[in-house]
């Protein structure tokens, strides 16, 4: 199915815009125009045109958010003039503690690094994109390599900042796991996460949505 096939001629441009809006709304990182073009099966030029039109629309409607092109991609973000309200929200409206679930995610990255999102997600049984994003934004973890296999998944590890916060000199100072042996379903989950068969990945991702977890509050 492509956009052209799906939409009637009159609303074709509208359909591209709606799909772009939907994808940008859920994207964690800026989405490159060529990726959008590939996903929606239209030219990059069309995507760029639609995004510009959308950005102008939001500007004209005086929205509290903007659509910007940043770091090689498009993303939604809060309007610069709403900074003071967002600051209030950051300072007063957010929990200052990691949830138990977020701590588990951080622990998995710390002990299993390098590890991919999919692997962590397989162990935790939930979608961890949001948590990984927060941990990365806070500088506790970062991309440290790429999986050499097909798909080239991003592999995460902990940062120098993390070590400092935990009062550790080197990673080996983490409390040892002893003779801990993970249960069979954990091993299986890891294997599944490591399997880089793209077809399987697609099939899994397209079944009805993984539950996701939030890192805070």
């Amino acid at each position: 199915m492509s956009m052209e096939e799906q939409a009637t001629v009159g609303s074709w441009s509208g359909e591209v815009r709606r799909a772009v809006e939907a994808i940008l709304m859920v994207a964690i990182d800026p989405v490159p125009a060529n990726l959008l073009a590939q996903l929606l099966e239209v030219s990059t030029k069309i995507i760029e045109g639609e995004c510009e039109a959308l950005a102008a629309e939001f500007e004209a409607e005086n929205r509290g958010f903007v659509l910007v092109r940043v770091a090689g991609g498009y993303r939604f973000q809060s309007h610069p003039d709403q900074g003071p309200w967002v600051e209030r929200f950051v300072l007063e409206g957010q929990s200052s503690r990691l949830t138990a679930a977020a701590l588990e995610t951080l622990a998995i990255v710390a002990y299993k690094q390098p590890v991919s999102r999919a692997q962590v997600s397989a162990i935790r049984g939930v979608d961890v994109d949001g948590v990984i994003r927060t941990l990365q934004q806070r500088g506790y973890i970062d991309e440290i390599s790429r999986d050499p296999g097909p798909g080239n998944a991003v592999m995460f590890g902990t940062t120098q900042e993390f070590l400092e916060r935990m009062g550790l000199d080197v990673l080996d100072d983490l409390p040892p796991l002893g003779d801990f042996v993970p249960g069979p379903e954990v091993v299986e989950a890891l294997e599944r996460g490591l399997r880089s068969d793209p077809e399987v990945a697609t099939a899994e991702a397209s079944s009805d949505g993984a539950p996701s977890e939030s890192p805070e509050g």
Partner: protein
Amino acid sequence: MTPVYEGPFELLLNLILKEEVELYEVSLSTIVDRFLVEMEQLEDLDLELATEFLLIASILVELKTRRLLPGRDRLDLDEEFGLWEQRDLLLARLLECKTFKDAAVVLRGLAASAAMSWPRRSGLEERFLGMAPDLLEGVTADDLHDAFLRAMAPRPSVHVDTEHIAPIRVSVADAVVALVSEIPRSGSVTFRHLTRSLVDRIEIVVRFLAVLELYKQGVVEIDQLGAFGDIHVGWRPGADPSDVDLVDAYEG
């Protein structure tokens, strides 16, 4: 392997409701036999689950046996009450099981439609990151260690669970008293009428036993026009309500 039944209720529910298409074909014998066959085919049955299956199977077999027994007069009322109670609890649990099965279907639908939307989880923009509170405040390396073990913990092994729903305690004696005050007044009433205010099936069963008791004592007449027809209960002309023995022996 045969279809995996989560438990004895699911299996029994399935066996009975499959028959629903041909209501007149529903036969306790068939159901009991199929239940036993399915049970035999279940592999990897752990002890707890096996016990549950056996418990249900024994109730079923007893019901079937009772059905085949001629001459119900010789049955001990207490014994019969016990069987009825078991059957009734079984029914109640099957109904409960079915209720939640149907509720689960709706949850599946809700989850599926909710999954058509993805939430925004992009989080803070760079310019706000500096002011965000330090989430690792107070977290130690040991906390991290424990969190890792929690995350990797295998599922707990199966544990023994013998809790069952406590039977509702209702007494035949109380039911007899209620009937003695009601039936003579109305002359002749249907059993349906006598149980119209009752909710719990076990209460209805007890009330039925009370009617049987009054019949045994010769103060009421029972008439049923055809199978499944209303049961008419009439006060026998001349019988004295004050003569009724209150059957304390059948309490609870």
